[in-house]
């Protein structure tokens, strides 16, 4: 599954980062992108940051995911 969710890095502690992922806080592994900093936006897949992305892209992707989630709920 290629699903990857945008998230904002709010804290970094060793190999883990605390992120804000579409309203939820969770911890993700940053072994694949160890240079991430607080304030960066990342794409999260299976609990790991796989890519650092622009804020603009993060927000666009969030919108897209919300649209799709709503579409699924509506059964369209």
């Amino acid at each position, binding site marked *: 599954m*290629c699903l990857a969710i945008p998230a904002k890095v709010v804290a970094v502690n060793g190999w883990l980062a605390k992120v804000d992922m579409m309203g939820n806080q969770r911890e993700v592994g940053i072994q694949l992108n*160890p240079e991430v900093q607080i304030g960066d936006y990342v794409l999260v*897949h299976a609990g*790991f940051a796989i890519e650092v992305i622009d804020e603009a892209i993060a927000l666009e992707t969030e919108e897209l995911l919300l649209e799709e989630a709503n579409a699924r709920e509506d059964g369209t």
Partner: protein
Amino acid sequence: MPEKMEHKDKARALAYLAAISRLADQPLTIMEVCGTHTMAIAQNGLRELLPANVRLISGPGCPVCVTDNSDIDRFLFLAAKPEVITATFGDMIRVPGTKKSLQSLRAEGADVRVVYSTLDALELARKNPEKEIVFLGVGFETTAPTIAVSIETASRENLTNFSVLSLHKRVPPALRALAADPEVQVDAFLDPGHACAIIGTRPLEFMAEQYGKPGVVTGFGVLDILEAVLMILEQRAAGRAAIEIQYKKVVKAAGNVRAQAMIEQVFTTADASWRGLGLIPESGLNIRPEYRAWDAAAKFALPRFDSPSPSGCRCGDILKGRIAPDECGLFSATCTPLQPVGPCMVSTEGTCAAYYRYARK
């Protein structure tokens, strides 16, 4: 057209469709090889929006769907062991093996836990020292680096009760098998956005250079997919074949070098059997001998199974794009999302599941 599309996006979509129509004077078949693309196309009714000359078909893009029946029976064998806690991503829970599934085993008392991340599986191992935690490694190159990290972490911490059954597969060898197969009639490919974020585009270039098939690394929205289709048509009009990136905001040609290094450190390539496509050389990832202590296949001396596919299930032909789901005799009759026969229906991103949900008349 998705109803909730904003005005400006609708305008862009219509502009792409107009440009696509102008260039679609000859038939063109495009295959996508990513479960998330399968769903995005089905959910948004893109096949109906595109001109009749442009055919979008689904290929082997769902790692759950391409897991061979024999491999399913192998992990069910492990999951049934009383000392084992099986940790797995959610989409494997209902996949049927020859006789059982993880879900049915769980009903019989097996300890099966759905996890979101291998990091959760590592934590299970730390918290349950008297148990053996086996993680089911299913996924392509987007997921494989995360499993590599978990094995490397277990090795560093000397976490002896954690192991991984690696059923990981690689996308480029599957593309090669499809390009070389005379039964597969595809002109171009939509390439997987996040798998390519990891591996970059270099491993795909042979598709254009050796086989003359254009490929576009594509994002997951309607506009991304339409733009990619247009890029393919433009290549054809110019008589070119190349691997291009539509999903530029996320994918670099070099990919994620660190993630590639992690895969290389922990895994080695090996021949692997794909449901429907058979044995594909170098298409699997096996755990390296130096990490043998975290390789569930070695640790549990897992027997080899020779399991036949369920009778009447045409998942294999569907994965090659040879038939559509509704051409399978079981589709919607004996095989439904509630009672799936094969993985193409079980997986939330399987071709049959997508078709059942969005495309049935």
